[in-house]
């Protein structure tokens, strides 16, 4: 793939020192950052909460991927991913989550990044790096890696 994924994931969309009392607060923080970046209409937040309430977005390896619903695509201004790290962990329906990769997508601009995320999570060593690195650039680089 030759898609330039940079604009979908930017260093300013990586937040390493988040705290949240619970899953709902964590989703709110994800929505805050997507809004701050101008990626979504403010009401996208509601769709993210609805989706999370309907079914957990927990993936595994301490990672959740909060996102909206099909009907909320129109509320997305541009395909964007943001990464929020919660060093103290957030209880995600029984799973401890320390990384949220929040998604706002109206097209397929984020697909390559999610493919990279899947590959990272299947490799325990790289999954640990995603959870622990203190370098925001490194997270962008990991997720922007082209499929090998």
């Amino acid at each position, binding site marked *: 793939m030759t898609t330039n994924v940079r604009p979908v994931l930017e260093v300013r969309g990586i937040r390493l020192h988040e705290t949240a009392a619970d899953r709902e607060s964590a989703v709110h923080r994800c929505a805050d950052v997507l809004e701050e970046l101008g990626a979504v209409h403010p009401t996208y937040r509601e769709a993210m909460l609805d989706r999370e309430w309907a*079914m957990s977005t927990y993936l*595994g390896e301490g990672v959740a991927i909060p*996102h909206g*619903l*099909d009907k909320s695509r129109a509320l997305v201004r541009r395909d964007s991913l943001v990464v929020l790290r919660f060093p103290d962990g957030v209880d995600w329906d029984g799973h401890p989550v320390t990384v949220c990769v929040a998604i706002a*997508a109206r097209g397929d601009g984020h697909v390559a990044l*999610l*493919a990279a995320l899947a590959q990272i999570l299947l490799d325990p060593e790289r999954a640990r790096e995603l959870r622990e690195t203190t370098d925001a650039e490194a997270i962008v680089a990991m997720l922007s890696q082209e499929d090998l």
Partner: protein
Amino acid sequence: MSSIDGGDIRKLVVACDAGMGSSVMLAAQLRRELRKMPVIVEHHAIASIPSDADVVLCQAGLADRVRAGAPRSVVVGFRMFLGDPAVARVVAAVKQGGVVVGTTGG
């Protein structure tokens, strides 16, 4: 349909509510695992599953809705996005042959 032979699978669809997050990721994984096989892997929202999907993978809790919307496809529910045994069985059936049995019940 309730079952299909792995060798007859030409289109595999991963379905979820939004077709934006989790299904996209699983589809990407499967596309990678099955890239040498003559199988098309797509991701779709439940409301727009193509009628020529041979097998549809979805979260177990969505299986009833998917079955209603895709009566001609074998519907397989899974619980985990990483390393789910039901997904692994579908991959193995496509690669090595064997029957894929649809999930029954909710």
